[in-house]
């Protein structure tokens, strides 16, 4: 069994794969370049993880953590449409990730995750040195989850 943080990030990727704007162009830690005919993509990266509260202990056998996930949106389009494409992707991503609130299920479908929410978005970085302007923007998500004090995979 993987570390629960790995299970979280895998579920996160799965949840935002298949959006109308980005389709299956969702990557985990994509360090290689993306093909030139690609217009939109999301690159998901593991962020900081901190124990909740002073020690993160919810009991003597469990630790509660806050895991940050960075979803970097990448867009290639004409300059005047970049903002609308970024916001469309953000909207679709938000709806896909926050559906747990309405359906009252566990966030990401994982029974050890008890909170998931958007925690801010950076400024878009836009460059126009290529055939089409490109942009990237980081969106931050926080995930509260729990694991055993003895083994983070359970």
């Amino acid at each position: 069994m993987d570390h629960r943080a790995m299970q979280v990030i895998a579920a996160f990727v799965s949840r935002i794969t298949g959006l109308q704007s980005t389709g299956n162009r969702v990557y985990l830690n994509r360090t290689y370049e993306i093909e030139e005919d690609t217009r939109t993509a999301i690159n998901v990266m593991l962020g900081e993880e901190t124990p909740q509260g002073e020690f993160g202990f919810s009991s003597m056998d469990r630790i509660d953590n806050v895991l940050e996930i960075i979803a970097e949106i990448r867009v290639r389009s004409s300059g005047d449409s970049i903002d609308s494409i970024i916001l469309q992707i953000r909207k679709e991503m938000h709806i896909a990730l926050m559906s747990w609130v309405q359906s009252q299920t566990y966030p990401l479908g994982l029974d050890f995750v008890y909170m998931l929410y958007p925690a801010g978005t950076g400024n878009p970085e836009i460059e126009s040195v290529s055939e089409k302007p490109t942009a990237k923007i980081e969106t931050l998500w926080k995930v509260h989850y729990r694991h055993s004090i003895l083994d983070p995979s359970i």
Partner: protein
Amino acid sequence: MSFNNLRQKLNNSVIQKLSDAVVSVKGNSFNGIFTREYIETHGFTGYKPILKCLAEDSKMICLDDKILIDNVEYIARERQPDGYGWIIFMLELNDGS
């Protein structure tokens, strides 16, 4: 021969011998030197299209004009005169996206 005349002769010779693209804009056609160097931005692979042409030939081109180069349409986004009779245009591919 004045320096200006010599420079003009040299520039004409360069465009005559080294031009590799036919440029059409606003009903005019002239020769230019077109490069499309590989570049990477924000993780996307791509190309940087640049047109170099004589200032005299390209004086009708304004920023945001559509330019046809070898049947591919670009938009002139930046205009950089070099002061020696050449203009370099930074181009954006006009593919409707």
